[in-house]
């Protein structure tokens, strides 16, 4: 197993190396790279080059982690399984690069499908578990619905323009109704990006996939949905209306995602919903950029694009850290259920430290990369608030309120993930026997975290380096005071970290001679303290879920104590978190469709004569309709 994946890792490294060189060249020189392979042209402009770098970083981090993660895999795998897994990994990496360098809809469709299928195979790794199988099948089904969208777009464009290159798409959009081509494409991209209400595949799939794959999918693959929206949004000369639609969808996704993250007690599902939130923020910012372009507000546009670019980078790195930590925890304790965890910081300090740092980052708190990536979003939001048009100004209010609410909810979600999962005392025996995996599993995590920290203290530097990307997106140069502001933020973050260090040292000095006694946590003097006396993942989320009940779907199975029941017998309390959309919309829909199909099956009598009758009726109907000049 280990060996096969090591080969995959090396191949992935090679791909990364080979593709990164032209990508960096594009970024440095500002000249687009293009190549003809067969009759197909591949183009990488600065934005594609940036995405290539993001894909490469993410894939390499996942590959490095995967090598060690799979080495400790307790289940025996057959050689076929391992080879399939390794090949799929490499295929996914290559397909993702293919997606961003495609310059026509056909190759986009091929790579898009390759990406879906290879990631489907990766998710299937734990196919022995029913849950993983169900999740994987749901995933591939939904992705195919999305791919149909691309096919529809191909149909429209090729029939009208005789070709499907991106420039023809642009011409088509300019001469026809824009939404005809954009809508089916947007369905595909929104599905991949996990945008509300098409996100329902995401949490299950992320939870079911092995951790290096979930990190890769969450950190990189779903970003390609956003890439598609940006790419084709730009191709169709984005209007304020399109921007507003994206903004609203982004807001809905961000808030829905993070509120549901709070409700989860499965650590990986919690992280997955947090990814939904972050995709929402990215799309919201894209919407903001389009709006700014529509009203010709360059400062806002640049700020919004900086937010998008920095957030893609930040989220890729931090999610790798978090998912890999979750992987280590799953490995050590064999459970993802936060209600079974607790006290891990004593048994798995190495993993929990990274979880803590990642939690700080993903909650966008000062001192982390999340703060600098959300900062430009705030700038664009507040600046939009200050625009003269009332309706535009209100959009600014919405985005700012979303950002701060998402930040506040993220604090609850990640204090839950860390505080309940890793701190306190162990709720079951599992965390007590856990121990940190080999240090090499943490190596890619520290690498990713190091990168994130670098962004945190030098955001201005990144923005300068990515000025080509920003220029490609907005066709505008970065205003100087935006850079200064970002530089100041970076310095401020560095100062914050240093001052924390200094105060900590001072504190150590001041308390060096003071006596320190150890004792149990204060339990009001009761002798028998146990793990039951601790908030659980369910009860920690309870208050939030209660006020946010319209957007969550938590079912409680518990028989209430009757008021007349003075001496209740022991009873149990269980909750189940479901996805509101999956449970209340898609599942009933699926059941409905199934019911209709069942009903139609009556027609399928197996009798040859009735089939002939159907055919005859059909022909008659067609003839009548033709005569009536309907068709």
């Amino acid at each position: 197993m280990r060996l096969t994946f090591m080969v995959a890792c090396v191949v992935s490294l090679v791909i990364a190396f080979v593709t990164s060189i032209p990508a960096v060249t594009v970024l440095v020189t500002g000249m687009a790279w293009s190549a003809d392979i067969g009759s197909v042209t591949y183009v990488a402009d600065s934005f594609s080059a940036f995405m290539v770098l993001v894909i490469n970083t993410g894939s390499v981090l996942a590959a490095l982690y995967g090598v060690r993660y799979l080495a400790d895999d307790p289940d025996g795998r057959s050689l076929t399984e391992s080879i399939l897994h390794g090949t799929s990994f490499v295929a996914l990496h290559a397909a993702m690069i293919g997606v961003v360098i495609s310059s026509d809809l056909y190759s986009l469709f091929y790579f898009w499908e390759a990406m879906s299928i290879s990631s489907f195979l990766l998710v299937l790794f734990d196919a022995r578990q029913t849950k993983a199988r169900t999740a994987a099948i749901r995933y591939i089904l939904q992705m195919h619905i999305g791919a149909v969208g691309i096919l529809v777009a191909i149909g429209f464009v090729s029939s009208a323009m005789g070709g499907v290159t991106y420039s023809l798409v642009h011409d088509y959009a300019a001469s026809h109704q824009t939404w005809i081509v954009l809508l089916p494409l947007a369905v595909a991209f929104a599905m991949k990006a996990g945008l509300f209400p098409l996100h329902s595949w995401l949490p299950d799939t992320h939870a079911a996939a092995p951790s290096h794959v979930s990190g890769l999918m969450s950190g990189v693959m779903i970003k390609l949905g956003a890439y598609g929206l940006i790419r084709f949004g730009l191709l169709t000369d984005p209007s304020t209306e399109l921007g507003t639609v994206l903004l609203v969808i982004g807001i809905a996704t961000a808030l829905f995602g993070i509120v549901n993250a709070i409700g989860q007690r499965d650590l990986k599902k919690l992280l997955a919903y947090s990814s939904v939130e972050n995709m929402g923020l990215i799309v919201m910012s894209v919407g903001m950029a389009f709006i700014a372009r529509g009203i010709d507000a360059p400062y806002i546009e640049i700020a919004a694009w900086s937010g998008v670019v920095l957030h893609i980078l930040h989220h890729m790195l931090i999610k790798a850290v978090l998912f890999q930590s979750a992987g280590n925890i799953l490995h050590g304790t064999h459970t993802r259920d936060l209600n079974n965890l607790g006290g891990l910081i004593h048994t798995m300090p190495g993993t929990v430290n990274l979880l803590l740092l990642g939690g700080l980052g993903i909650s966008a708190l000062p001192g982390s990369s999340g703060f600098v990536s959300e900062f430009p979003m705030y700038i664009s939001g507040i600046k939009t608030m200050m625009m003269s048009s009332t309706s535009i100004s209100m959009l600014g209010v919405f985005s700012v309120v979303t950002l701060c609410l998402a930040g506040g909810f993220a604090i609850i979600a990640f204090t839950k993930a860390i505080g309940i999962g890793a701190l306190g005392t162990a709720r079951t025996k599992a965390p007590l026997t856990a121990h940190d995996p080999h240090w090499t599993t943490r190596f890619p995590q520290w690498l990713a975290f190091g990168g994130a920290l670098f962004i945190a203290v030098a955001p201005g530097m990144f923005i300068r380096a990515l000025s080509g990307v920003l220029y490609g997106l907005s066709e505008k140069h970065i205003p100087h005071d935006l850079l200064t502001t970002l530089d100041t933020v970076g310095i401020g973050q560095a100062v914050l970290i240093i001052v924390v260090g200094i105060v900590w040292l001072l504190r150590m000095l001041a308390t060096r001679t003071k006596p320190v006694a150890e004792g149990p946590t204060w339990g009001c003097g009761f002798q028998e303290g146990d793990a039951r006396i601790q908030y659980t993942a369910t009860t920690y989320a309870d208050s939030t879920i209660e006020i946010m009940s319209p957007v969550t779907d938590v079912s409680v199975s518990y028989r209430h104590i009757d008021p007349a029941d003075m001496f209740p017998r022991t009873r149990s309390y269980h909750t189940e978190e479901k996805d509101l959309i999956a449970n209340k919309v898609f599942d009933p829909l699926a059941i409905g469709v199934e019911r209709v199909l069942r009903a139609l099956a009556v027609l399928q009598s197996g009798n040859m004569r009735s089939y002939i009758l159907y055919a005859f009726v059909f022909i008659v109907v067609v003839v009548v309709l033709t005569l009536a000049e309907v068709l």
Partner: protein
Amino acid sequence: METIFIILFVLTLLYIGMADRLSTLVRILGVQGILLFATAFVALDKVDALNLSFILIETILVKGLLIPAMLRRTLQRNGIVRETEHTVTQFQSLLVVTVIIVLSFILANSIHQPHLRIGYFTASISAVFVGLFIVMTRMKIITHMIGYLILENGIFLLSLAVGNEMPLAVNTAILLDLLTSVLLLAFLVDKVGETFQTVNVHDLNELND
């Protein structure tokens, strides 16, 4: 000056969203009546004595004093203090009221009519919807009444929003308003009083054992 009254009026709507004691609701109704008079007084440029006395009677006397007093009497007589039967939590109710105000604002903003005064329009539309919302989500008949009265206030404001040039419309609205108010009053005194008195008798029976 008008701005202040309008904003104070919208503030009372927010307060309605979060109030859970009936006496508070009644007090807010009184305040709204007085605010309405102030707004009308400022908003209507040319008012003759007849119109002014009309408005005075309608807002201060009926809306500000009479109806709240009647409601308060009903409450006291029946010893109900608290609105307990909500179909939504208070948090959600306040959230909905806020959203109603924001949406009314957007609506008002998207109508381009030279005669329309956006501030009044926002406040009146919000009041209408808040009134409807109260009627929809509360269970007690007396709260329904309060909801209708808030709705009435909204309609009064609506007549101001379009009515600077149309004193006739204002007067008609006021007349209609008066009529409904009187009808409501009659209803309150007769029906509600009756129902609650029987409840009271029932309570007294229970006291004995």
